[in-house]
């Protein structure tokens, strides 16, 4: 053990560059892996456990970081601490590349290729699995992936026109993080604009979900642009419906003149003859009115008041007109309207006005 100790300690640092190079060159098998680690076996086991039992590669990457940063055996949670050192940025880039290389090595024992794009997803998934490990490993792994995201984000920010990248990035982060709230990340903390932008984006997404539930048929669609298209279509169709209904109302208009007045005035005195269910409706209305009276009073006191006097003034003329026109049609239409309103529970207005009088 004594021999092992100093040997490992001595062999650790000088072993780093060749270790890194060997990783870089893609030379690796089990023997090389353990030789590379140059750590006591317990720690190697810890590292393996930390990364994933199945993926040695990530353990190698993390071990690479560990070798670079802290020579003596560091506990797992201090990886996070060590990772927050500002000098680690370069090392983290290396680590990113390493895990990529390591993944490639995992998939195929070939040479190292410089591409990071195709394997980022797999490395991300690895990190996802890493992240889900409970305990202290959480913060460190998250910070690791956050740093990687920070790297990519910084690159994106420099490009400045890459809107789609930003969208994918934000969605990526939302997948990764178990919680959704704004948090300062490495490589980004100083940039208040991006923080605010991310907060804004999350707000927007939350409300878009609301809208999606509202508009029928928007649940299946993915992507905000298409959902917005649907919403715009819906709003336009509703507005067109309003316009069409108002046209139809205008066509019916000559009859509304008298009907509405009579309808509105009829409740005051219940003087309508032939109103077979007029009394029934009046009986039905008061209890509905009492419920909503407070809300009405609370909400607006002004608009109804000027109307009250007009209703008083309207009482006499409609009766005169009604007698001129004859009772039958008017009454049935009025009753029909009233019934429709009742069905739609939309008939509180006359009694409402009456109560306020």
């Amino acid at each position, binding site marked *: 053990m004594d021999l092992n100790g100093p040997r490992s300690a001595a062999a650790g640092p000088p072993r780093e560059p060749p270790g890194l190079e060997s990783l870089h060159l893609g030379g690796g098998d089990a023997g090389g892996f353990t030789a590379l680690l140059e750590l006591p076996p317990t720690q190697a086991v810890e590292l393996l456990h930390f990364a994933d039992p199945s993926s040695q590669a990530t353990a190698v990457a993390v071990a690479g970081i560990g070798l670079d940063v802290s020579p003596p055996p560091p506990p797992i949670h201090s990886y996070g601490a060590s990772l927050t050192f500002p000098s680690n940025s370069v090392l983290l880039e290396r680590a990113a590349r390493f895990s990529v290389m390591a993944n490639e090595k995992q998939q195929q024992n070939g040479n190292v290729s410089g591409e990071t794009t195709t394997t980022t997803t797999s490395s991300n998934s690895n990190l996802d699995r890493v992240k889900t490990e409970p305990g202290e490993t959480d913060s460190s792994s998250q910070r690791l992936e956050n740093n990687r995201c920070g790297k990519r984000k910084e690159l994106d920010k420099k490009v400045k*026109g890459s809107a789609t990248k930003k969208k994918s990035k934000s969605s990526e982060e939302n997948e990764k993080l178990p919680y*959704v709230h704004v948090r300062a990340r490495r490589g980004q903390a100083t940039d208040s604009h991006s923080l605010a932008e991310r907060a*804004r984006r999350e*707000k927007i997404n939350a409300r878009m979900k609301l809208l999606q539930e509202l508009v029928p048929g928007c649940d299946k669609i993915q992507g905000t642009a298409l959902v*917005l298209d649907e*919403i715009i279509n819906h709003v336009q169709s509703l507005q067109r419906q309003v316009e069409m209904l*108002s046209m139809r109302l205008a066509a019916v208009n000559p009859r509304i003149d008298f009907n509405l007045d009579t309808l*509105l005035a009829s409740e005051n005195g219940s003087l309508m003859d032939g109103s077979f269910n007029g009394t029934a409706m009046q009986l039905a209305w008061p209890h509905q009115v009492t419920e909503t009276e407070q809300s009405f009073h609370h909400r607006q006191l002004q608009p109804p008041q000027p109307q009250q006097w007009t209703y008083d003034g309207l009482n006499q003329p409609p009766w005169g007109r009604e007698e001129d026109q004859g009772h039958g049609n008017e009454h049935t*239409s009025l009753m029909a309207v009233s019934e429709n309103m009742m069905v739609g529970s939309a008939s509180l207005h006359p009694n409402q006005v009456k109560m306020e009088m």
Partner: protein
Amino acid sequence: MASADKPINTDVPEKDVFALHFLQSLSNLRRQNTFNSPEKTNDRVKKIKKAAYVSMARAAGGTSRLWSRALLRRAAKETNKVVRFSRRKKRVTWLRRRSNRRDPVEEEEKEAERLRNLVPGGGAMETSKLIEETAYYIKCLSMQVKVMQCLVDGLSPK
């Protein structure tokens, strides 16, 4: 900050509220017209439509919502025949200056622009607020459509 917006309130009053306001506005219209209604149908349609929107704005919570305020303001101004766009443009430029560099690229901002044109008062709102107002507006519109449908069904000749 993002998690502070959890209780987004999009409750809309019941249909009877809408019906009350609409009928009130209609009766107002009748009072304003001469009883022979000599005007053309188009004018009448426009008046009814305007009455519909105004009553909807009032029913949907008076001035507590941006779009209702904008609707009411627009209606009031139309009676005075004053152009209504001044305030809107000012706010839009202020917002645009901050976020202009990436707006033309994003798909979403184009849609938001269209939405702004549709929803009254949309020019003065930031995108997240716009979406919230749109949700409320859609609910109110559908309620208003139901009320008008009931009315038309009730009054159309059998």
